[in-house]
């Protein structure tokens, strides 16, 4: 099943964008504009809906002409590419999007051909529409293919905390070490995992700033 790698699903969706000469700006530009204003961090729609590890949205204007002796050809529509690396079952994932972020889905895919009239409020129609635009992933590679988003975030949190614990308990006597470790473990278990899409706990280490 090439779309699946372990518990990770490689969802590839290509949605034709409405081509309407009378739309000003055109629908593809409207999608671009909507995406440009969307947060990519904790308040991203994909952070609010469950199951997305990494996802991208790309307005694909056309195929690319690589030059002679290849033939030049063009797509008749622009397409919105949605590449998502998500947890588990496709229906659950798509349904999860419809439940959590219907307004954003409408804002993005509302510009695409055949999008349900009621938008994501019509959960079944939304899932059906997305599947109609789905491409089969031919080969899918995942470095870590058996951990969900919440499990991953928790593991990262534990790693940071453990490193700090080891550093601060060097040379501790066994009784103190054990007592403090038990406290530490209980506290860590109880602590909620950090929200998806965040840069992790604030650290004062600078590696040079943002990439954006």
């Amino acid at each position, binding site marked *: 099943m090439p779309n699946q790698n372990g518990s990770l699903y490689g969802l590839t969706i290509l949605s034709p964008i409405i081509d309407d000469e009378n739309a000003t700006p055109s629908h593809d530009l409207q999608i671009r504009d909507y995406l440009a204003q969307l947060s990519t*961090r904790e308040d991203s729609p994909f952070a609010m809906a469950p199951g997305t590890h990494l996802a991208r949205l790309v307005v694909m204007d056309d195929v*690319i002409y690589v030059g002679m002796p290849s033939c030049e050809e063009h797509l008749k529509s622009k397409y919105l590419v949605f590449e998502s690396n998500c947890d588990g079952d496709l229906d659950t994932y798509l349904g999860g999007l419809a439940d959590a972020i219907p307004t954003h889905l409408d804002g993005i895919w509302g510009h695409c051909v055949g999008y349900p009239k009621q938008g994501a409020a019509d959960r079944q129609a939304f899932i059906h529409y997305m599947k109609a635009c789905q491409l089969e992933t031919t080969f899918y590679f995942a470095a870590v293919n058996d951990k969900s988003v919440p499990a991953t975030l928790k593991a990262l949190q534990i790693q940071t905390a*453990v490193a700090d614990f080891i550093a601060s308990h060097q040379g501790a006597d066994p009784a103190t070490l054990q007592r403090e470790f038990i406290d530490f473990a209980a506290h860590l278990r109880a602590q909620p995992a950090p929200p998806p899409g965040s840069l992790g706990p604030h650290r004062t280490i600078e590696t040079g700033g943002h*990439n954006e």
Partner: protein
Amino acid sequence: MSNINGKVYALNVITPMKPWKTWILRTAFFVLDHVKPLQNDLINLSFIEFARWVIIPRDAFPFLGNGQRPEELKYNYLLFFSNFNGTWNQYIDAFSAVLSKGLNLIWRWSEKFPGSVPVTPFKQYIAQVQFDTDYYYTAYPHATANDLKSAHIVQNSFSRLSTFAAQSTPQQFAEAYLQFVLQVQAHLGETGEAPQVG
């Protein structure tokens, strides 16, 4: 627009393929999928979080009617989406240096592919067939593939030690703790912001 979010880069590539060559590529992917040792190099180049190839036959572009004009194409298209850590140059340098045969096997069926060695014409080709990401989300921008793998190793060891902690004497715990530190000592790197690239 940004191709980068935290420590991960979203690369999108589209290349045309003559339809008759596509079945060879499908076979290559089939073999790659089912002969796991062939994936070792990909796994050992530990900077890829997720990557996928998608073959779109020329008649398989999604068509939803409603006034959409159906596509009339000569070529099939190969889409490649990668989510990798590090810089664009570093990524392509690495592939060209150690995975050139695998890359050639996948892309030689695409029109005008110059080969993955030497690296400069290869980079020029990729720059030509790359298109940019409008929106890129990651649930863990502060962590790389290496960080993820390390995190799971640490969590595993930590779980086991936690269970043991409650039931042991201090001396037993101290010994177990040393073993625990030895298990995780190579996996304690900080996570955080990525180096600035431009």
